[in-house]
């Protein structure tokens, strides 16, 4: 084997090892950290797993925001077909308001209530998260 070939072989070997490690790490991490998106209809239908971190998006129903003790808050999300109550403990983002499309991340508890760990509202009042937009549109077309 010429030195040039040997060097190329070592290089290829290193790259293969690197890629293997990376793929392994990535797959492991992906398995644990992918969050599926669900709409309120899917939650009510029961397609969403409970006690797994998922994302739920929809419109905040007007008049549904209720403050509890300390920083606890509950509100209702809708896709105009079904509704899901969301419980959250903490400060809501600036652009959270009634009638706004938002995305929450958290877990479904055994009573069918969604316990959010994170509430995301985007930095533009005309912006609708694409997932929410799609979910809403799906309901609209089914409804017609």
């Amino acid at each position, binding site marked *: 084997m010429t030195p040039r070939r040997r060097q190329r072989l070592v290089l290829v070997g290193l790259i293969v090892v690197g890629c293997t490690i990376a793929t392994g790490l990535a797959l492991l991490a992906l398995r*644990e950290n992918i969050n*599926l998106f669900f709409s309120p209809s899917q939650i009510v239908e029961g397609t969403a797993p409970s006690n797994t971190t998922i994302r739920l998006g929809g419109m905040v129903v007007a008049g549904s925001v209720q*403050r509890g003790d*300390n920083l606890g808050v509950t509100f209702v999300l809708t896709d105009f077909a079904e509704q899901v109550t969301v419980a959250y403990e903490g*400060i809501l983002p600036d652009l959270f308001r009634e009638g706004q499309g938002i995305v929450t991340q958290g877990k479904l508890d055994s009573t069918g209530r969604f316990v959010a760990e994170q509430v995301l509202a985007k930095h533009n009042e*005309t912006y609708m*998260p694409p997932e929410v937009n799609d979910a809403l549109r799906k309901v609209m077309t089914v409804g017609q």
Partner: protein
Amino acid sequence: MIPELGTFSLILALLCAILQGIFPLLGAHRTHYHWMNLARSAAWSQLVFVGLAYACLTASFLSHDFSVRYVALNSNTQLPVIYLISGVWAGHEGSLLLWALILAGWTGAVERCSSAIPQEMLARVIAVMGLVSTGFLLFIIMTSSPFARQFPIPLEGNDLNPLLQDPGLAIHPPILYLGYVGFSVPFAFGIAALLAGRLDGAWARWSRPWTLFAWTFLTIGIALGSWWAYNELGWGGWWFWDPVENASFMPWLVGTALVHSLAATEKRGVFKAWTVLLALFAFSLSLLGTFLVRSGVLTSVHAFANDPARGVFILIFLSIVVGLSLGLYAWRAPSVRSTLVTSPISRESFILINNILLMVTTATILLGTLYPLVMDALGLGKISVGAPYFNSVFVPLTVPLVLLLGTASVIRWKQDKLKRLLWILTPILLISFVIGVLWPVFYMPHYSSVAILGVTLGVWTFATAVVGVWSRTSGGNRWRRLRNTPSSFYGMTLAHIGVGVFAIGISLTSAFSVEKQVRMAPGDHQLIGGYDFRFDGVIDVRGANYVAQRGVITVFKDGLPVSRLEPEKRTYQIQQNPMTEAGIEAGLMRDLYVSLGEPLDDGRSWGLRLYLKPFIRWIWLGALLIAIGGLIAAFDRRYRLQSRNRSLSPSTATTPPVGI
């Protein structure tokens, strides 16, 4: 009238770019000097016309010409002048124009500073940049003209997004773009060298300062973005693994690999084909970043709601650029002969491992960023890949990288002795570990393996960098040797120290930050990490174009007041968006950070976020040191000296004089 002048000069700029892209390339192919000379005049005229278009848009902003749709969407008569100027790049159309202007600017800079480069090479480089520019100008003119008029003309503009009304964010995009677009220069040099079939040491030497400049700007741009997010978003975080952050981080990682690999190619003639490939990748990822940010396919804070035609255009453009350049690479690269690496115990082989680690890291980030898009496109469901994914792949890949970095500061080119290395490095590693254990024990509240690892790595990079300088300058008159050491070496040392400072900052902040979300009425106290926060209530204040509620929080330590924080909740008059301005007391050892949440039902109490952030400043300090290191290396005298010598050499003297 002015907007039409802008459109007109954009079209003229496009024509110049087409000339600049075609004739010099043909001229270089056929050794036709007049055609090659066209590169210069075409590049300069393109710069003038794009600059004119840019000036027209700025003028429209300054004169509040709301008949221009883009101006009406992004400004307002009450907006302060600085934000009228920065409003030009607040949206999609204007930021593309800025992109084109910066590309033309880099082309002009290359033309000015490359008097020593052979004419065929320079012609090809400028032509490649002209082709890229053609693509962008076509994109602007066809899908996103910033000069589009609207009727009826609104009396008042829609105002600039309040998030962008901050000096940090006003300069973040231009600096970031200087970096992004700057990678077009090594890209163009790479393509030109592949076309000419001449991938030699000279090529690496010409590309090196440009790559360093671009990389420095990108470093500063990313750091500014992170600093802004910390100040402005009110979440106390500095990096969110947001897809758009990833889009700027990936070219940075590849750029880092490129900077190192170029050094090895220039010094030792190794890895030539690999280095060109990195140059192609770095710019391709910059384009991918633009595509991701501008096409609206991402759910992100930066995503503008956009029409899909733009996304399709960028995607086609991206495939053409990547496809053609990789095709050219596949055709030409097999004929490139690099010098062989003589020994595994050498700086070049460490640089190779560094490159592989950086590329693997980039690949995992790319996977995490694109995975949701691919799943969505294939109809396999909507998913999001969150920060935990990125943290769990990023950390295991970067820790060995930092360990190697320390070794590489000390190791010699070509061949080194394992015994010598172990003799130097083992004590440093031991000392670093001891300091790593002791520091958190003495200064921090509780045990944390992350903190120990971070401080160990930080001290390790610092110590090896210093030892690297010391051993390089030993023997003979040390002062003279210090003075004769090239500045690229000092740049490297400083940047490596910056990585250490950065590692300490990240690890201590993530290990010891304290965060509390609380409900507080005036007069309430909260104790956080030994600091006593007292909420004194909220007052109303009025700014230039907003009204705000300003909270007053007094912080005590051991009974003595140490700071008074004034976070604000602003409401801008036009868009009516509430905006959080955090109240921050910055310090080298810790930040005190308060942001106002929302008023609660009883009318007196507020939801507040209180944070204690130890050593968070070290993150940006580290990034700043890295950037300064890059800048010092870019100004290395050798690049200029060698180019001056070269211009006297007979080989270039035979080419006819430039000009008419």
